[in-house]
């Protein structure tokens, strides 16, 4: 009981720090009014031209360039108004120890008249802006994303700490024995998870559900003592955070297995280097030790994979990656240029053309040996 009380007390303190940081933004606007300055908020520019490599944490974070949201323009003025309404809402939510989803926040703004968000991406960005200014995370605001359904499956036992109506409870789950074939669904706040024990040698993060199911059906997890994480496309923050925590705490290597197209390389980049949109949290989310297994453009040649033609959008995305500082390595330059030359792309499931076991019996073992993991 005492531990529970302490936990609640710590939470209250954390909430009060969050509120103060949010109110500082309001103070700043108010002060600018008093000092007869046109109110503005400065936020780091969130484009690929303003991300830089942090030597210490080995991830990509925002650089020094800042953009101003200023009342000089209609857009800026509305942005400030929306910020103040959002902060007012978050403050009330923290006062009442409640929480809401990003989507709920968007709907709540319906009643804000002039400050109403036009679409959910706008309110999502607002929360990101506030994270960047306060140097906090949306969890601190009691704002959470929708569950996105990403899962883990493998020899690990974890402990959940769940809070509901002011009651905290624990639950211990083994991610093979205690879950169905679907695996353990990653919750939105993975910092509430503790790792109890594990028998794994490495973690494999997979882009598509089809390939994840293939590995499980073929018993890849038991044959290689691996934890299989399903990324489900561009991974949610919680998935990336979980990968990072497992990598750091359990010292388990992480490999990423995706399709062989520009969008998939961005999935890997957001896992390993940090994403452009949330570079303010790269140190918290990115796993710099993560390695890319494939599908590499050179695999298309080496394994003679069935391919599709690159679309115009694909080509543009590849060209954009050539100027993306995160991909400015010899490996990526060679691979991307090769793909532009081939004008082809391949999916991970293309290995099925060599038989259903080929990927688990031949390709992955070969690549894992290359990377020095088995």
């Amino acid at each position, binding site marked *: 009981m005492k531990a529970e009380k302490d936990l609640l007390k710590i939470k209250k303190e954390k909430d009060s720090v969050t509120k103060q940081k949010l109110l500082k933004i*309001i103070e700043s606007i*108010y002060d600018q*009014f008093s000092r*007869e300055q046109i109110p503005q908020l400065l936020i780091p520019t969130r484009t690929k031209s303003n991300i830089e490599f942090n030597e210490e944490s080995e991830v990509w974070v925002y650089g020094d360039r800042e953009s101003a949201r200023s*009342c000089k323009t*209609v857009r800026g*003025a509305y942005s400030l*108004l929306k910020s103040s309404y959002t902060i007012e809402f978050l403050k009330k939510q923290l006062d009442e120890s409640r929480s809401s989803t990003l989507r709920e926040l968007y709907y709540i703004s319906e009643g804000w008249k002039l400050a109403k968000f036009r679409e959910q991406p706008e309110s999502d960005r607002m929360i990101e802006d506030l994270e960047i200014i306060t140097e906090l995370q949306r969890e601190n605001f009691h704002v959470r994303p929708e569950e996105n359904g990403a899962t883990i499956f493998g020899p690990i036992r974890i402990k959940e700490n769940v809070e509901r109506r002011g009651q905290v409870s624990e639950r211990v789950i083994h991610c093979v024995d205690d879950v169905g074939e679907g695996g353990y669904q990653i919750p939105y706040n993975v910092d509430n998870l503790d790792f109890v024990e594990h028998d794994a040698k490495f973690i494999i993060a997979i882009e598509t559900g089809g390939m994840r199911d293939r590995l499980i059906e073929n018993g890849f997890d038991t044959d290689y003592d691996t934890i299989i994480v399903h990324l489900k496309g561009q991974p949610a923050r919680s998935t990336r955070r979980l990968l990072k925590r497992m990598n750091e705490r359990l010292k388990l290597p992480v490999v990423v297995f995706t399709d062989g197209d520009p969008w998939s390389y961005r999935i890997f980049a957001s896992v390993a280097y940090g994403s452009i949109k949330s570079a303010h949290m790269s140190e918290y989310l990115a796993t710099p030790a993560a390695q890319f297994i494939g599908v590499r453009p050179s695999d298309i040649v080496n394994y003679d994979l069935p391919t599709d033609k690159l679309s115009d959008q694909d080509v543009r995305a590849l060209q954009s990656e050539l100027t993306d500082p995160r991909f400015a390595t010899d490996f990526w330059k060679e691979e991307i240029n090769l793909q532009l030359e081939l004008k082809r792309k391949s999916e991970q499931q293309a290995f099925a053309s060599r038989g259903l076991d080929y990927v688990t019996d031949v390709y992955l073992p070969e690549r894992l040996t290359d990377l020095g993991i088995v």
Partner: protein
Amino acid sequence: MAENIAEKLAQKQREISIAEFFEKNRHILGFDSSTRSLITSVKEGVDNALDACEESGVLPDILIEIKKVDKDNYRVIIEDNGPGIVKEQIPRVFGKLLYGSRFHALKQSRGQQGIGISAVVLYAQLTSGRPTAVYSKTGKDEDAHYYELVINTQTNEPEILMERVVPWDRPHGTRIEVEVEGTYVRARKQSIYGYAKSTAIVNPHARLTLVEPNGDTEVFERVTEILPIEPCEILPHPEGIELGTLIKMLRYTERRRLTSFLTNEFGRIGQKTAKEICAKAGIDPDVNPSDLSRDQAKRLLEAFKTVKIIAPSTECLSPITEELIRKGLEKEYDVDFIATTTRDASVHTGNPFIVEAGIAYGGSLPKEERIDILRFANRVPLLYQQGGCASTHAVEKINWRNYELLQPGGSGIPQGPIVVLTHVASTNVPFTSESKEAIADIPEIVDEIELAVRDVARGLKNYLAKQKILAKRKEKEEIIERVLPKLAEKVSEIKGAPQPDIQPIVAKIMGNVLVQKTTEQNDAACTVTIRIKNFSESLKEFKLHEVSSVEIEDSTPKPRVSSFDGSFDNMWKVSIKPKSEKKVRYKVKSEESANTSPLVEGILAEMVTGANALPKKRTSE
């Protein structure tokens, strides 16, 4: 041998009738495709009708009716309320090529050579095998004459198939009916509908009624009751006259002295100029003109170029005028902005000409198509050969990107919600061909068209710039009137603090002069401070007034005080540089006076924030 062949050839050599020539070369006259032939038939008829009405001072009321006869043939009916044609002339006007009243006259008219309508008659008999029917009546009490006629192509003479007096309810006018081969289209600019619409724009004094083959009737109503000024005939201008013409004139003149020849046979040459010309050419001014040698004629021609001769009279021209082009565009297009211009007259090869232009922008015009160029010559729409026309070339030379239009490559016809209208009026419009669809690239004409189009384009540019400023001002107003007050309210509410005064920020955003009045109550008196800050970019000078019911005290600086109706007007002259600040401070023993808004005088209301601006100078002094 050679002589024999020449003899043989001589047997075959004979005169070719002009009618025979055109029978073989009808494309030259605009009868090439079946679509165009139908349009040309209508066009020639309407041109004649308009010319006839205007010459006799009648507001044109013209009926155009197209009826489908069979698969390929249409019956074209053009009826006007003009003066009619006297009985004896009817056969030759319609049944003889190169017969007309305007060929020899130096004045602006639609038709010129007397080819147009008789070519239609010829085209009709060639394609449908049917004669042309003509009704004409010259007055209320006159008979209406009806003719059916064809052209004898060998002799270029009319052949009358029927001739009689018929009852006709019109007081006067002419009606022509021809049956021709053709194709009727509607959808595009190159159509009879398009022709009628264009004609209506530049002839706002005419009412056109179009009855289409499907029975649809469209009336293009007139928007003015005033006829264009009737152009008068002028004498030829010496500039640009050709040697052969000059020699011909010298030989056949009735004048016996060169100076008299020059002053009487040419326009714009007086006694003084005539003598100057003779001196320059080194010819005795009293010599008989018919005695001049070719060489002397040539020297005379040279002298025309070096002696300063005033530009030809423009009385022979009848521009549409800026106002009527505007009205014409207004009635046929739904747009946001129209600019029009009529330029001063210029001269090309001795012929005076005037260029007019109009531009219509926005409204329901398509944004993503190439702009429409409506070309006119002597009030006649030019529908074909757009690419080969001087008007088009002038438009293409302009950089339309300055007007926020798409213009790939920086030249050529741009894309955007614009209609450009060009009108060239001249005693002699130089067409590239006899079908009169494109104006030739005479440098003087291209330059004038370009200047005219640039002129109206400048008008458009100013309009767009104003719209931009308005939009910006509107945007700023949205910030200061809607968003800022709400933001100030919200942040003070969250902070739990009193609302800040947003006026200084409003003044800053608008670039205005801020007049901020604060009062402090202490015991019996109020201390009033008026802070003036100039957020604009320029020095501002104005008068600041505070009206009080009692005299104010301890004022720094001192105001000029005048009293009226028991009140006091305290006035300070303010001169304030950009970004600087001044203060006026005083005490007053009346709360009421302390709480009124300050007044300013001599500065525009929209340049001030926090004070009421007086519209005019006060008379109380």
